[in-house]
């Protein structure tokens, strides 16, 4: 019998793929064959490990040696040294950014040590395109248990008892949502998985879809059984081609194995799943807009009630949850609600996957128990701020969330604590910002996003966000007026109260939270016409320092002739003429021009 003594896991998530992991995988296969190891070493293509910053990632088992930023050129050395001679290639091992300590083992890396991976448990360890690998780690056991040992009522009760709340934004209790759909009497019901992950800075759903697609199918099928639906849709962004491909493969395999289709587990329960590709509209993440889009209409929200549980897709009772929510369901059924309740806080159970991005050393996905502090996530898991800069704020929850300052780093994170400080869990995007980030610019960035994604149906969102954006724009251009801050606050309050859907109701959050915690920055922009972080172009003041050798290049480059001086002597910029284009700074060979 063939004996495989080592496995080489090559990450094939989107991050690693774009960093060249396919070439790495091919190189391994070539090299292993060339060295005559093909019978004893197996190369496995896996989903995302979440540590995208250091991709392409390669992990060699049984030792669990973690190689980062591997290129195809490194492969012969790994094969020869590690797989033939049993010596690790030290230069490719991971080094902790804070201590510079070398960490050979996957499980010893701080980024992973503090995590508790339930949803992401199999991302990066199984081949997502092989259903057998999912079954080997306990896949479809939850569906089997639900269909053969539990009544639909018991399934709903178990999910209720687990305290699972929606991971997509609002945090509505999942079991309660299911019970509403279950109570609706109709011969046709639907289950929808919202995989329209549109929040900029969030990519956890993509990782699960790409790395463990069967988990979603299983969660949806369990939901279908619980509420009495026989058909499901996954609404996934067209921007995620790899996720769509893997889902198609997974559905086909699950149908072939009888986990989807007719009479599943001989229980008489039928369930089929379709994929719908989104066409590029952020508002389609809102449930009523999403259903309109599946129906082939413009994806615009409608007032609720009636809620989807009563009248949803094509007027039928429908239950919508997002990817991460469904991914939690199978293990709740297998291990029971009591097991699940041990993780998290009193009102927020389980874990949450956060997407760590921005000015942080370890960008990637981190799954942690609810109740962990922001400081632990950013410093222990995230490895702190990069380039030794000072932390300024963390933006949580995407365009609907808020920016939190350093004082709140020790706040235990759950749904309710975040809402209390003016942010929200949202989908779990965490964008870390350092001292070089201008908070007014950040608020403008988010409002610009929601404004351009506003569907235009209701006036507060369509007109209100536009006016707010105009005010923010003039503030960042040095035209801010006395009273602008109060005006922004007043408009934000009105939009929050009157907009039709979640997009509009939460659109002012980034403005409100930056006003609350970073008001002094707004004031500096308005009163002193100054951007403290030096980000806002129109307010920048360019000056020539004494490093100037008088070469005259800047004066020649300046499009408005604002620079004067004699050759070989320090030049000066006439601030009254300068249009802040920055052209002089980029041509100066002596780095003598500063921006402040």
């Amino acid at each position, binding site marked *: 019998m063939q004996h495989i003594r080592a496995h080489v896991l090559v990450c094939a998530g*989107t*991050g690693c*793929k*774009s*960093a060249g992991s396919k070439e790495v995988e091919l190189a391994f296969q070539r090299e292993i064959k060339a060295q005559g190891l093909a019978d004893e070493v197996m190369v496995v293509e896996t989903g995302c490990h979440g*540590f*995208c*910053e250091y*991709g392409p990632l390669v992990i060699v088992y049984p030792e669990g040696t973690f190689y980062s930023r591997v290129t195809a050129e490194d492969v012969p050395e790994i094969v020869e040294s590690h797989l033939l001679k049993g010596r690790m290639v030290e230069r490719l091992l991971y080094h902790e950014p804070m201590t510079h300590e070398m960490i050979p083992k996957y499980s010893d890396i701080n980024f992973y040590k503090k995590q508790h991976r339930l949803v992401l448990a199999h991302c990066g360890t199984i081949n997502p395109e092989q259903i057998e690998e999912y079954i080997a780690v306990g896949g479809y056991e939850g569906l089997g248990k639900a269909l053969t040992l539990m009544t639909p009522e018991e399934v709903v009760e178990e999910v209720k008892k687990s305290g699972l709340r929606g991971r997509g934004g609002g945090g509505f209790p999942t079991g309660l949502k299911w019970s509403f759909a279950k109570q609706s009497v109709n011969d046709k019901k639907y289950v929808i998985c919202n995989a329209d*992950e*549109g*929040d*900029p*800075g*969030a*990519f956890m759903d*993509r990782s699960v879809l790409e790395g463990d697609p069967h988990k979603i199918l299983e969660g949806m099928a369990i939901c279908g059984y619980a509420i009495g639906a026989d058909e499901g849709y996954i609404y996934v962004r*067209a*921007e*995620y*081609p790899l996720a769509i491909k893997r889902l198609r493969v997974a559905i086909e395999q699950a149908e072939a194995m009888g986990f989807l289709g007719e009479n599943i587990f001989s229980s008489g329960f039928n369930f089929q799943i379709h994929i*719908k*590709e*989104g*066409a*590029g*509209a*952020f508002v389609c993440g809102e449930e009523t807009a999403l259903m309109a*889009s*599946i*129906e*082939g*209409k*413009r*994806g*615009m929200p409608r007032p609720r009630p009636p809620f989807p549980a009563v009248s949803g897709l*094509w007027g039928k009772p429908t239950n919508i949850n997002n990817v991460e929510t469904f991914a939690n369901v199978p293990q709740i059924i297998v291990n029971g609600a009591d097991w699940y309740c041990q993780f998290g806080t009193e009102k927020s159970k389980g874990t949450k996957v956060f*997407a760590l*991005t*921005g*000015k942080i050393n370890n*960008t*990637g996905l981190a799954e942690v128990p609810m109740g962990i502090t922001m400081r632990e996530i950013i410093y222990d898991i995230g490895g702190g701020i990069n380039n030794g800069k000072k932390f300024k704020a963390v*933006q949580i929850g*995407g365009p609907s969330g808020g920016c939190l300052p350093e004082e709140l780093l020790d706040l235990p994170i759950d749904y309710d604590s975040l809402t209390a400080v003016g942010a929200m869990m949202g989908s779990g*995007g965490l*964008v870390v*910002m350092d001292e070089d*980030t201008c908070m007014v610019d*950040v608020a403008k*960035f*988010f409002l610009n*996003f929601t404004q351009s*994604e506003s*569907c235009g149906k209701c006036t507060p969102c369509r007109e209100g966000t536009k006016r707010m954006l105009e005010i923010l724009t003039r503030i960042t251009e040095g035209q801010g007026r006395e009273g602008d801050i109060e005006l922004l606050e007043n408009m934000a309050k009105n939009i929050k109260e009157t907009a039709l859907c979640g997009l509009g109701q939460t659109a002012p959050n980034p403005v409100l939270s930056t006003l609350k915690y970073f008001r002094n920055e707004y004031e500096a922009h308005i009163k002193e016409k100054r951007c403290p972080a030096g980000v806002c172009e129109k307010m920048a003041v360019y000056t020539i320092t004494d490093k100037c050798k008088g070469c005259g290049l800047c004066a020649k480059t300046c499009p408005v002739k604002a620079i004067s001086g004699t050759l070989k002597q320090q030049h000066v910029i006439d601030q009254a003429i300068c249009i802040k284009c920055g052209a002089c700074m980029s041509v100066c060979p002596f780095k003598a021009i500063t921006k402040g």
Partner: protein
Amino acid sequence: MDLENKCCCGGENKEKAQIDEILSKYVGKKGALIPVLQEIQALYNYLPKDILEYVAEKMNIPISQIYGLVTFYSQFHLNPRGRNIIRVCQGTACHVRGGKVILQAIEKQLGIKAGHTTEDLRFTLETIACVGACGLAPVMQINEDTHGRLTTEKLSAILDRYK
């Protein structure tokens, strides 16, 4: 232009046959308009007006409704597009890591603004709100490839690969 009454010599009929083939897959299916348009766009790279009129007639949907749909979703395009589509990410993570500078550099290099196509139809330049590869910020997608950890110095070499 009415494709139904166009005659003979290959071109139009072949087009019509392709459209009919797409439409036949969705006969009797609910919510088919978006997938139909997605397939047509995959064929032409954009949605030509005469084709949309033909689809409207065949599917018995008012052309105004199709126009409303096409202009709502950012994925659909009514004008011809370049052979290579560049989407520069302007999401949050890319924004704080200099995504704007990358966009400006490409605009300068191609001589077009975001949302436009070069005259030789080689590139269409667009922005995208987030491609979900935030660990590699700043990023851009060209066609289906994602390019990450961009610097302005890397851009020329990357663009050269797409003819």
